[in-house]
């Protein structure tokens, strides 16, 4: 079957997703999230006290950091199937995916570096910790453009049978809007917009998790539709040649 590779990439999502859940739970700095108001001494103490947890979680995150990329490239392939005037949104989506993935890879390196020498000057540990949280929470611009491209491609899909139903476009716009305010974590140390706040942390991560789950089923349905179409095309070809 033509879609075997896509289905393999799709089923990597629950596998890596569960590893992510484990790594995030194990980190100790996420539930509850570390506060930006911690002093340099407190941040350094956090690293000293949770060294094993931080290292094991972030080494795992370093390995699986960009593991959702195969899933997003399945979405690119499905976008290429849509009947749009051009493939401009699929190309833009791909570039946005590459950019976004690079940033998460940077975040876990900063966390690991902070944990590498717990005896380091606490100011430097705090600097690395700040950088890690910035790179983890705030680069939302790429996700916004990614979702915007997918939504526009769906709205403009003129095919007789839609690859993704129209509600997926609305869903992508809504998730982009919910995630967008997290960029303000670069500015605020307290309140809902701080990196440990209700909007920047809890809403952001739960929206992100829900998005991946919903898109998993949406993409699965689109791959099935592609299979059905291939089978139908083959049987009609057989009828014609018979």
């Amino acid at each position, binding site marked *: 079957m033509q879609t075997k590779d896509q289905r393999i990439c799709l089923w990597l999502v629950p596998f890596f997703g569960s590893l992510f859940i484990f790594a995030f739970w194990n980190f100790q700095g996420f539930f509850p999230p570390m506060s930006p108001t911690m002093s340099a001494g407190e941040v350094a103490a956090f690293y000293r006290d949770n060294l094993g947890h931080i290292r094991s979680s972030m080494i795992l995150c370093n390995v699986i950091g960009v593991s959702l990329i195969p899933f997003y490239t399945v979405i690119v392939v499905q976008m290429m199937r849509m009947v749009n*005037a051009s493939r*401009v949104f699929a190309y833009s989506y791909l570039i946005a995916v590459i950019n976004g993935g690079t940033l998460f890879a940077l975040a876990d390196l900063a966390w690991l570096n902070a944990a590498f020498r717990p005896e380091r000057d606490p100011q*430097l540990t705090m600097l690395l910790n700040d950088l890690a949280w910035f790179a983890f929470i705030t680069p939302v611009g790429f996700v916004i453009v990614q979702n915007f491209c997918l939504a526009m491609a769906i709205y403009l899909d003129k095919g007789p049978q839609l690859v993704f139903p129209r509600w997926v476009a609305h869903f992508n716009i809504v998730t982009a809007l919910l995630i967008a305010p997290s960029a303000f974590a670069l500015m605020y140390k307290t309140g809902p917009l701080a990196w440990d706040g209700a909007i920047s942390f809890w809403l952001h991560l739960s929206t992100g998790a829900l998005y991946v789950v919903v898109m998993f089923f949406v993409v699965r349905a689109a791959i099935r539709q592609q299979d059905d179409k291939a089978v139908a095309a083959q049987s009609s070809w057989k009828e014609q040649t018979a």
Partner: protein
Amino acid sequence: MTGAALVSTSGSATRSSRFVDNPKLDQWICFWSIPVFYTLFGVIFVLLGRIMPPPTPTMSTEGIVAFMTSPGLSLAVVLLALSLGLYALNSGLMLTQMKRMEGVSPVLRYAYIAVLGVGGLPGCLFPGYMFALGAFRPEYDPAILAMLYDLGFLCFVGSLGCFVIQYVVFSIAVFLDKRGIFPKWLGYFSIWTLVTELVATPVFVTQTGPYAWDGLLSFYQGTVIWVAWQTCVTICLYKAIKSQPLEELSIPLKPNEI
């Protein structure tokens, strides 16, 4: 336009004066993101952040603290984090037009995707984060603030590699293209822009004079030529989309074609 809609030459699509009914709507959306993005770019780096034109590399500690604590800097980086992704739409549009070229294989498009997938980070968002870190905690040790200041400006002015290869790939495509999607002079202009990028390489070893990161050659000359190049590319993109025949739209992909 007289009638409600005019039937186009291909007969399948209809043309009307409404923007949303334009058969090339997808490309036009991406096209108009370019002026929006560069307007925001100006607001972020010039008006709010005061990162452009850059302050001197020989700044005193008090000067660095004053730069990092200026009120607009954090907001500038927030806007950058929100809007940098728009650059992907510009790149996607370039790729769409490069795909129309004749005598150019996908190899240049793949290179363009890879280069632009990395390009914006070391030269734009990463330096933004260095400034945001300083603005977030001005109470950092002055030595740390000075390092963030250097790292920010060296990356912002000195991160050239991705752009150099972008110009190389783009100009090769323009030169090889037999259809003339983009004019040949744009290829030569890209090479010229590449050379001005190379002129900025000494920013890493000099702190004063025309080759420093705030210098006449490294910063001002490069920026002026880059703005002119970006303007020309945008105008050429406009013409390329405008002249694209409607028959080229909505063509189904061949299997395994990207």
